[in-house]
């Protein structure tokens, strides 16, 4: 009997890791189709990463995320001996939209989440686990935000923010309501139909006697989630601010699944196709619509303009860039390695108003503006030399220079 369970456990572990690598790693270098500002920050901070292709770095995050889902399954099983609950929790960490999207671009947050949770579960039997985890998340917070942790927070508004976050509508329908950066269109943090499983999970957790270990683990992660939520800055996107809370919600949903499966097979079978349809629906939304909807938050246009500068490096001596258009500069060290940043001058609105019309047309000079800057200058659209577009076709940057 023991051997059968052991085999099952082994097969399920392999299944989870393979499924993770497949789902999270599939076309990871082309979807999202550009490098986000956050990835650029990470590469800039850890300068040894500069030598790698920024798209290929995403494989590292896929592996970390896959290992995290597998470790979570293994450790939860070791602690509770509840195979179905730990399996469903591993499965939820594979396909849930909140973790799927943060597993597809290089970022610190997924690393923190994976390391903290895996270590906490690994040391779960130890009495020092709380000290250990709190130390770990404070250190992580400090490394990311230095002295900003605690000071930047407004606790009352954070409390409201937490209530907003765990609101059904935001969890299952809206997704990240603070930023569209990693929001998959029409997708919540969890799949729509899991809303019912979540309610069932809560219901059984509240009304059923027993399952003390599971209840305690879920409670522990809620507590950790709240602390992380409160120590991180208010302007951090909600997907990162709430990742520990999402983990605990995943555990509740997993409990809902496992209870449903153990008591009412027929309902569980009814939900499987629904969940599968929900999964297919959001995958389509990710692969075909995410890049279009969110193109201004990612670096599609920035990468293009960097490559344009790289290509024309020899013909350019000076580049004037308006303040609003300067966000592409941090992409230059990655995509335009030969271009000298000192050629760039960031100009004020007064400069655009008074001098742009002369300076931009000097020899070997280029002006890079946003659409909104044109109103300030005395240019009309006929003066535009080149336009750089977002992936959705809207104009991102306009370039003025002397036409050949």
């Amino acid at each position: 009997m023991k051997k059968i369970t052991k085999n099952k456990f082994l097969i399920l572990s392999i299944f989870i890791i393979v499924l993770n690598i497949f789902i999270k790693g599939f076309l990871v270098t082309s979807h999202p189709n550009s490098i986000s500002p956050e990835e650029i920050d990470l590469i800039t901070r850890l300068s040894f990463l500069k030598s790698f292709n920024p798209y290929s770095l995403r494989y590292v995050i896929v592996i970390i995320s896959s290992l995290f889902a597998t470790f979570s399954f293994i450790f939860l099983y070791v602690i509770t001996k509840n195979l179905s609950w730990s399996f469903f929790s591993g499965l939820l960490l594979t396909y849930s939209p909140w973790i799927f999207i943060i597993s597809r671009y290089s970022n610190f947050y997924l690393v923190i989440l994976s390391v903290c949770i895996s270590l906490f579960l690994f040391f779960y039997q130890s009495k020092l686990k709380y000290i250990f985890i709190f130390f770990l998340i404070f250190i992580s917070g400090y490394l990311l935000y230095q002295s900003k942790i605690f000071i930047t927070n407004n606790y009352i508004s954070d409390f409201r923010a937490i209530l907003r976050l765990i609101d059904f509508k935001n969890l299952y329908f809206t997704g990240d309501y603070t930023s569209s950066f990693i929001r998959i269109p029409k997708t919540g943090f969890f799949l729509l139909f899991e809303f019912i499983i979540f309610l069932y999970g809560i219901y059984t957790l509240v009304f059923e006697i027993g399952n003390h270990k599971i209840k305690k683990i879920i409670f522990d992660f809620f507590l950790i989630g709240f602390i992380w939520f409160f120590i991180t800055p208010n302007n951090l996107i909600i997907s990162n601010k709430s990742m520990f809370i999402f983990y605990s919600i995943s555990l509740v949903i997993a409990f809902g699944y496992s209870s449903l499966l153990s008591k009412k097979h027929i309902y569980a079978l009814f939900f499987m196709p629904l969940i599968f349809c929900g999964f297919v629906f959001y995958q389509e939304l990710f692969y075909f619509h995410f890049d279009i909807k969110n193109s201004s938050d990612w670096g599609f246009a920035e990468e293009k303009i960097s490559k344009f500068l790289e290509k024309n490096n020899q013909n350019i001596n000076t580049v004037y860039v308006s303040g609003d258009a300067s966000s592409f500069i941090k992409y230059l060290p990655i995509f335009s390695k030969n271009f000298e940043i000192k050629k760039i001058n960031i100009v004020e609105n007064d400069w655009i108003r008074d001098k742009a019309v002369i300076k931009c047309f000097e020899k070997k000079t280029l002006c890079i503006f946003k659409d909104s800057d044109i109103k300030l200058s005395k240019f009309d659209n006929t003066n535009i030399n080149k336009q750089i577009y977002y992936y959705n076709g809207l104009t991102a940057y306009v370039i003025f220079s002397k036409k050949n």
Partner: protein
Amino acid sequence: MKKKVVIILFIFLVIGFLIRFINLDKSPPGFDWDERSHAYNALSIAQTGKDEWGKSFPTVFRAFGDNKLPLYTYLTAFFIKIFGMNIISSKLTAIFSGVLSILIIYFIFKELFENKKWALLASFFMVFSPHSLFFSRIALEPILANLLIISGFLFAIKFFKNKSSFHFFLATIFLIASLFTYHLSRVISPILLFFLFIFAFPNFKKTLRSIIFYITMLSVTGIFIFSQYSSESVLKFKTAGLFGQNKGTVMEIDEFRGHDKDNLISRILHNKVTFFSFALIGNYVSHFSFDYLLNFRETNSVQQSYFPPIFIIMLPFYYFGLMFLIKDIFSKRKFEEKLISLFFLIWIFTSPIPSTITETAPDSRRALGSLGSWEILTAFGLLMVFLKIKKDSLKKIFFISFLALYLISLIFFLNNFFLIYPDKYDYVYAFKENKIVELIKKNYSKYDFFVYSRTVANQPQIFALTALNYPPEKYMKEKKWIEKDRWFVINEFDKFIFYEEITPIVLTTEKFKGKKIALFLTKNEYLKNIEFFKNNIITQNTYPSKATYDTGEPKEILYLIVLKL
């Protein structure tokens, strides 16, 4: 015990009335077009037996073209006949509806859970319920619709308990009556009636008399329900609701299909079924969400409550109540024993539907069918938690702590409701229009014409009519109007002339020559026209709202320009 309960209930009713009655003209800080339309039609009925369009005792009031349901107006006509037309008499129907619901909630809780003490608590919650307070103080129908629905619900559960045909009759009558109050009851009441008839069938005695009674009631109800769904109501549903062309969801489908170049997969995934289901489920669920229940969304719309349905301290007990109720449904008791709880659950889950099918969901006005269920569930949740506590001393601590926190929330709410909200949101609540009413009242005899546009005042005629209590008979004959997109547009009556927008062209007509004209303008209209009439101005005044932006600039401003052209 019985005497004590009666005294407490009486105190609740008195407090409930007072709190709904004091400062009636200050909070909410205005009297909007729909409220005035009810009031004026009520005045017209009271004086002439006809509505403003000259139709005798209509079953639907044409009003602006929005076809208002009649019950609220008729009840208001009664108060207007006695007290004359003013803000108070126009709002008395709503006030009494709110006050009576305090009593009904007591009886519902008592019937549901057979506990008088905790029924008093539910009724206490109703006394200070933010939504009940808000909607009892505006002259609109939702609070009356809610009263009739909960009354119907009360008699329905009474019927389930004692099988009395009289209670069944009353339940049916109240629910049918609610169909004539507001559109929300056109959704909720038919569903409740449907289940009432289904559940009632096995409970009736199998005698010929009972069967005839049942069939008669069923037929009458059916006729009333089907009469509600005329082609006009269907059209209203299509245009006001989530559905129909050019609505957000339809445009979203087009956008997503555009991304995929309208291929087959795209059409399978992005269509009305998937997107509307998504929108509908999302809208529906949001009525049970923190966002709505604690009112985190800042609403900027007139006739919407700026306050949460329940206080934050009540929230966990509301959810507990709901969970215990669902648990009760799944318990192993006989179906007959669970029938009342099931019917209660049907009410709870039906009442968000009218708001769900709108684009602005959750909409506090259209979701008012839930009023009462929040209070009952909270009291029930508290009761269940209270019963789980074993020690008496802990029970006392728990109850006192809850009450203390509730009272703190209440103080904050009342301070907000009576002192902060009226100034902070005066600009939303028909500020310019209410100012126009004040100015017309003061200056009617001074000027030859009052001219203003539909930009400065939505439905401009209603403000002049109610400012002067203008004789309905006279108005019926004098008004000049046209029909535009199914709405009735009044262009002039008496000294009042209305335009889409004030421009120099409209002011250069012959009839204004040599006349003294009072012009009410928005800031935009003023700036656009100032060059034209700056030499003809006799006096000019501005009336800013109390609400201001951070810069100190008023959020709304009305210009009164007196001209002689």
